[in-house]
């Protein structure tokens, strides 16, 4: 059995962005295909970062309800107590206005310092809300949350919807959503299944790449994103080994 590697995102061996730099807000994106559902990676963020107790996590999903998220994103038994809040957005797909959605679901959050939002598949709103453009999804929902409620946002998206050959209004909005996401992200995590299909001891690859956003962190603290590619193997739910 291969040796288990620790997950590293920054050159100072941290996974989550710094909270002490209050001016800096980060955007992570986790891109996956059908068959590589990456909640284990979020679990690693929450549990394996050396200072994760400093953060206040909020988990919101458009496809899975609170019950499911509580089962799958939780603290390990032996780690320090974590502050995780679950806000169910599955019914958010029925919303007719983005600002109303923020008002009803996130009204109680007043300061964004140290807050991390794990947001699953916000792009589904493009399909559910009539005439919604990806520009307005960013402007009226994600940017608003990022400016007012959360210091860091982790977006989990299924890139099976990405297609460069545009044949409809909605397809165009999905494609620009993913492209914009790459331009805005500080770090991009791509979870791929194996090209060959199936192997006994490898489930897929996880690559960590720098996104298109300006590396402000590096500019101020000289901490940079370490681009890397790992193999991962899902031993059982929530037990995932990483190795080179």
């Amino acid at each position, binding site marked *: 059995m291969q040796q288990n590697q620790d997950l590293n995102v920054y050159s100072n061996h941290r996974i989550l962005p710094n909270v002490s730099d209050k001016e800096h807000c980060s955007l992570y994106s986790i891109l996956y*295909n059908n068959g590589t559902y990456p909640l284990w990676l979020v679990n690693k963020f929450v549990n394996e970062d050396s200072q994760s107790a400093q953060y206040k996590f909020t988990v919101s999903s458009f496809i899975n309800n609170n019950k499911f998220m509580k089962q799958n994103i939780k603290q390990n038994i032996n780690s320090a107590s974590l502050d995780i809040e679950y806000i169910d957005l599955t019914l958010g797909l029925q919303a007719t206005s983005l600002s109303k959605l923020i008002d009803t679901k996130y009204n109680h959050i007043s300061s964004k310092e140290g807050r991390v939002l794990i947001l699953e598949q916000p792009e589904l709103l493009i399909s559910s809300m009539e005439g919604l453009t990806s520009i307005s999804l960013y402007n009226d929902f994600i940017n608003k949350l990022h400016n007012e409620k959360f210091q860091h946002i982790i977006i989990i998206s299924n*890139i099976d919807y990405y297609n460069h050959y545009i044949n409809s*209004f909605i397809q*165009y909005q999905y494609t620009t959503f993913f492209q914009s996401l790459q331009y805005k992200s500080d770090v991009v995590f791509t979870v791929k299944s194996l090209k060959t299909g199936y192997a006994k001891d490898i489930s897929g690859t996880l690559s960590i790449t*720098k996104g*298109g956003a300006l590396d402000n962190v590096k500019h101020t603290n000289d901490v940079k994103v370490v681009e890397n590619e790992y193999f991962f193997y899902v031993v059982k739910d929530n037990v995932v080994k990483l190795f080179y």
Partner: protein
Amino acid sequence: MSLTTNNSIVLLKRTFSLKEQPSLILVLDSLLQTASSSLLSEFKHNNASLNVIYIGFENSINKPHYADHIIKPHQHVTLNDNESTFDNKYLRLIKEIESKITINKQTLLIIDNALYIDSDDLLLLINKLSYKEGEPIPNRTVLTVYHKDNVDFEQFQSKNNFSQMTTLYPSADQILKTESNVILDLNPIIKDNKFVYDEEDLDNNLNKFHIPRGFNNTKRYHVDFTNKRKSGRISTFKFIINSVDHEYIDDTKMLKVDNPFGNNDISEFEGMTTFNLQMTDKQRKAKESVELPFMEAQQFSSGGAIVYEFEKDDDYDEEDPYEDPF
């Protein structure tokens, strides 16, 4: 030769410091080499007194270190309503921008990126920002970023004939390319990247939206710099730019000419001839300093006219040689 390459770097630096005062700069970037993480910092670096205002449609969260002010357009622009007029949509944004500008200070307005503005509003917005009462506003330059890989929805519409109006209207990148004085086209150096095999491999990855490692490299990337002069002359240079140490290398002349005669490279013939083709530096200098006869005659300085000098033995002929003899 070396003179022209020096000129190109000087020209690039003058452009970055806005000494040439271009009214519109277009920066073309892509997922693999974004402008916001690389090139945009060069302007502030080359001219520290510049007042840089970043209008962050793309990034409205963090103020970049190369900007003095950030404007978060989503707070000022109302985009929900497609029916609303230009003034309804953008007047508040323009007011907000104007409030950050000091009149006597050289100002750079960065619009990142142009796709967030409807292409029929784009030109008007740029115009309102750079002209006042028909005169260009002094000390002001607008820079727009355009993502090359973004599929233009209007082009898609025109292909599908959804709307007659849009088919007749040029797309945002066409408008920007013709209107701008300076075009900076950013590209990653694919050859340097050890994580992709070739361009085809890269395309395969990008089609699945898998972004390989090693891109968005701020230390080494290609820039195609197109400068349009007032005379209408357009010149294009290639640079390799390092935004970490702010170094520029002219890459134009490094476009190798394959013909060995074309670039006077005779090293390929070494050892193949029975006589010496090489030249020492001293010989080269001597060769260059030889003044060839009839060089003056080849200059055609008199513009092709017949110059006739009257000499003392010539007799002056009053007759018109072209006169009809009958």
